[in-house]
């Protein structure tokens, strides 16, 4: 696809890379920031922090349950711990500890899951996390962040540190197109409208934000005016932005690299049902596990490309009329 007008999506670093760099900056700014990892520092990119602040980096080995709870103990003793692993392990294996040691006592712990979604590629489903938005959102009081690119990741990692309370941040393995300039301001809980549109709103998060922008451009050539909204904060949701989109465009497609069950789409649908009911479509992983393959091949096969978002829009508009 050749971007012509609004968006020229340039390749950027993976959000995990941006997370690792942001952690180092945080470490320089605040000596209370500590980092815990479970034998994946070279993949989660906490290795940058480890190199600069070895005394504030703690290796927990391959034992996520203990790491999450020990991180909670550090937070109870006044630290701002960032606990990191692949999402599939940090959240799924640490879930009970996230519930009882972090969410329920409202502990100031930050959990960062990398290698989220199916775009991790060749390693396959055991390493792919397609349910952690659902899991993290089910933890009462948690803030759940899902940045789309380098600038949003860096900004939101810093906001997470400044916010007092439990936060989960979802990062990916593959390079993410640049969507924002480095000086762009982000606010936890405040969605960002990237393009205006009259006919439909595409609400997206993570890697699917870029695909949604490409879809909007393709649709424009067909005379369809699509609004694109980046939900970088899945919880708490920006209800006002969703209500506005429903009221002004009357049709909403939600796109995410996550199981449709329990994902962003379901959460958006709840707000739409409560505020301004309108037809919706959902782009995501539908009740299955993916497989090994190159990231692009997987996104293509499992229906997470701009083409799939555009097809969902067309189907939705056919229903709307």
């Amino acid at each position: 696809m050749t971007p012509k007008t609004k968006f020229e999506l340039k390749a950027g670093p993976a959000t995990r890379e941006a997370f690792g760099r942001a952690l180092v900056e945080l470490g320089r700014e605040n000596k209370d920031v500590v980092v815990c990892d479970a034998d994946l520092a070279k993949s989660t990119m906490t290795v940058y922090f480890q190199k600069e602040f070895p005394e504030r980096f703690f290796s927990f080995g391959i034992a996520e349950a203990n790491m999450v709870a020990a991180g909670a103990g550090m937070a109870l003793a006044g630290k701002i711990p960032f606990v990191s692993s692949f999402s599939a392990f940090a959240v799924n294996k640490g879930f009970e500890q996230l519930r009882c040691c972090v969410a329920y006592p409202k502990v100031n712990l930050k959990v960062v899951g990398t290698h989220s979604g199916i775009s991790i590629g060749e390693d396959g489903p055991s390493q792919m996390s397609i349910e952690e938005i659902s899991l993290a959102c089910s933890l009462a009081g948690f803030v759940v962040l899902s940045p789309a690119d380098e600038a949003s990741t860096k900004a939101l990692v810093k906001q997470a540190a400044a916010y007092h309370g439990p936060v989960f941040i979802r990062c990916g393995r593959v390079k993410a197109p640049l969507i924002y300039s480095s000086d762009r301001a982000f606010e936890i809980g405040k969605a960002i409208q990237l393009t205006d549109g009259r006919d439909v709103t595409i609400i997206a998060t993570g890697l699917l934000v870029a695909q949604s922008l490409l879809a909007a451009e393709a649709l424009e050539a067909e005379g369809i005016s699509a609004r694109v909204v980046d939900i970088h904060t899945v919880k708490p949701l920006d209800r006002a932005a969703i209500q506005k989109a429903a009221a002004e465009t009357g049709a909403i497609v939600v796109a995410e690299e996550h199981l449709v069950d329990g994902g962003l789409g379901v959460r958006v649908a709840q707000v739409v049902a409560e505020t301004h009911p309108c037809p919706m479509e959902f782009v995501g992983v539908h009740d299955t596990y993916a497989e090994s393959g190159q990231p692009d091949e997987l996104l293509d096969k499992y229906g997470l490309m701009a083409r799939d978002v555009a097809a969902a829009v067309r189907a939705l508009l056919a229903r709307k009329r």
Partner: protein
Amino acid sequence: MPKSLSELQALAKQVRREIIEMIGAAGSGHPGGSLSAVEILVELYFDYMHIDPKNPAWPDRDRFVLSKGHAAPVLYAVMAEAGYTPKDKLNTLRKLGSIYQGHPDMRFIPSLEASTGSLGEGLSLVLGMGLAGRLDGRPSRYYVMLGDGEIQEGQVWEAAMAAAFHKVDNIVAIVDYNGIQLDGFVKDIMDVAPLADKWRAFGWHTLEIDGHDLPAVRHALEEAEATKGKPTCIVAHTIKGKGVSFMENNPKFHGTAPTANEVQLALQELA
């Protein structure tokens, strides 16, 4: 202020009475594992730990986490006696709106060091506190009490491995080895013996004591403090339901409240 042995013994008896009364009033709860832990908590809170109930957020305080959170009544009684929380409200245990929740809950008692109840998590919490305390150069020591049934949880051994690996010598794990868990005797449900050998194999300085012998508890805590470069585990041999004849070594009283009649009988024994 340090107390004499006879004062500590009197406090232990008073705490036992309060445990019986509050669980009796609640109509549910876990008397057996509360009674087995009395001397250890009395020794910690009234003799050994550096704490200030009037200044519970003192950053350099010692900290105690009751990982076997179902024994909350013993912690509540000790904290109330120490002046953290109101004594006259102990009998609101487990009732709606009470600060004395079924398991320790920091939302209701901010001076608690952790919310516990899901077994297997307290050693990890204390490990994190110990690492943070060492990083900050604090003199604080960090204590956790584990149940013997609780240590069937795999997370305990993840934490045990990590604590020895990181050479965290400001933390102490105390296992309340009373031999009984909810479904019966530990040896019949999932035996944890040889317990001390397991902790030693995981790299901990380990000692075994009579958990109802106050001077022995103090001596063990001193030995733990003198041990450098590794964490210490105190395997405390205790009697479930200690102090009430019909509760002692009786699995029924792991998680069953005494009847009104049984409360009276127990209080007579603890007079």
